[in-house]
């Protein structure tokens, strides 16, 4: 892919600017480049993502937003031919350092996908799975407490408390997505990545997930990839616009949606862009 921008223009402001200064930086990327079998997918992305807030990544398909998301929990490791360079730190620790165990990293950096993907197990076991393999509970009571707490945080407890042994796959799409979020929360992550978490859901289920995201941001650093401009505007405090592998513009969500500085951002969010 040809980089349409000269190097000196490929570094927009790394911090989202006013209003976010008081929040500590959770994720820090510097000059992150990703290629798949030699094909460049991400060019020198540098960004500071604050903790305890929601950051939306927007941009057309193939712009690199999901690629960048996948770097954060090293999911690109699983893709043959993928090469990630540059510095990517969570809480100051280099994600790609050899000493980092990807399994531990992925517990710390939870991921929610476009399509709900509960395990073919009971509701209880879906949530208990992570704490079990990571040894987070010493007794059945402790595990029960983690499951209940996680389901409550995901806003699903009241709907499933009386049928925890039913299969997770039997829930509605919106409930499954909240189950998956409960599953991610159960292993005490610090960062939650969401890749178009509502694109398969109806508006009511979407509203419930968005309400949940708003509640979760008190305790987590949330990064959401979305194709819905309205969703980005509704749920996030910062928005980053990616285009052709470049981070074009990053700012407070209000600023991005009322007064974007880059004409590419402007054209994309107003629907003037192919």
């Amino acid at each position, binding site marked *: 892919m040809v980089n349409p921008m000269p190097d000196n223009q490929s570094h927009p402001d790394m911090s989202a600017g006013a209003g976010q200064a008081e929040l500590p930086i959770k994720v820090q990327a510097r000059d992150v480049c990703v290629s798949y079998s030699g094909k460049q997918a991400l060019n020198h992305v540098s960004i500071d993502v604050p903790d305890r807030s929601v950051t939306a990544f927007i941009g057309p398909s193939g712009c690199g937003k999901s690629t960048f998301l996948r770097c954060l929990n090293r999911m690109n490791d699983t893709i043959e031919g993928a090469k990630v360079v540059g510095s990517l730190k969570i809480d100051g620790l280099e994600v790609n350092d050899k000493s980092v165990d990807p399994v531990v990293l992925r517990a710390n950096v939870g991921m929610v996908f476009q399509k709900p993907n509960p395990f073919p197990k009971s509701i209880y076991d879906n949530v208990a799975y992570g704490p079990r393999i990571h040894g987070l509970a010493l007794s059945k009571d402790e595990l029960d407490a983690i499951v209940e707490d996680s389901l409550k945080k995901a806003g699903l407890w009241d709907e499933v408390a009386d049928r925890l042994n039913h299969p997770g796959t039997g829930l509605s799409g919106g409930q499954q997505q909240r189950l998956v979020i409960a599953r991610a929360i159960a292993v005490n992550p610090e960062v939650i990545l969401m890749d178009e978490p509502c694109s398969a859901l109806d508006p009511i289920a979407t509203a419930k997930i968005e309400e949940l995201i708003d509640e979760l941001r008190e305790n987590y650093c949330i990064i959401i990839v979305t194709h819905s*401009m*309205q969703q980005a*505007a509704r749920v996030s405090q910062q928005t980053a616009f990616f285009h052709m592998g470049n981070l074009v513009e990053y700012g407070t969500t209000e600023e991005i*949606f*009322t*007064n*974007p500085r880059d*004409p590419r*951002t*402007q*054209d994309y*969010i*107003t*629907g*003037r*862009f*192919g």
Partner: protein
Amino acid sequence: MALSKTAHIVTAYGEELDQLNDELARMGGLVETQLTAAINAIVRRDAGVAGEVRQREKQVNAMHVDIEKRVLRLFALRQPLATDLRMTISALKISTDLERVGDLAKNIAYRAKDLSAYPALGLMDRVERLGAIVIQQLHEVLDALSSLDVEPAIRVWRADDEVDERYNALVREMLISMGEDSSLVEPGVHILFVAKNLERIGDHATNIAEALHFMVTAAPLEADTPPAS
């Protein structure tokens, strides 16, 4: 004229924004004509203009309602963002100001009818001058709106002080004249209302300048706003 050089992917959306702009420009033109006619009526002591101005005011009101509907529809169906959002919200604000200007112009035309019953007053040249400045202010800001040019808008905004000064001077002199000659009290009250209406129209011109400035730059127009380069 559009704020973005690129066309919308959804043609109908782009057309709706263009139509909103066109309607706003037409409304501006009509209101300007309205104000010019009303001030001419005062200056020429023409009692016959009032009816005509009232007819046009109904048209202005209908356009205001139409623009409100268009804006509501755009928000509900298109959810405009960035320049489109600023344009849509500014169009609503500007049309509200224009509607008020139309209303004030109608009031002025009515005063012309009342004033024609009295002998010509000595201070009419001051009223004429104030009227000319206010028409110029409105004309310049509407021109700036059609070209989306913030520089003349900032000039208009700053020039409102002159309108206020002339208005205050006129009121002072009118009060002195009325004090000296009680036969001037009745026509003088009409003149004071005309002057007040003109001063208010000047304020609406500055409101339009502010809305235009926000539309183009996303920043409020404030006392320390530098002249556009």
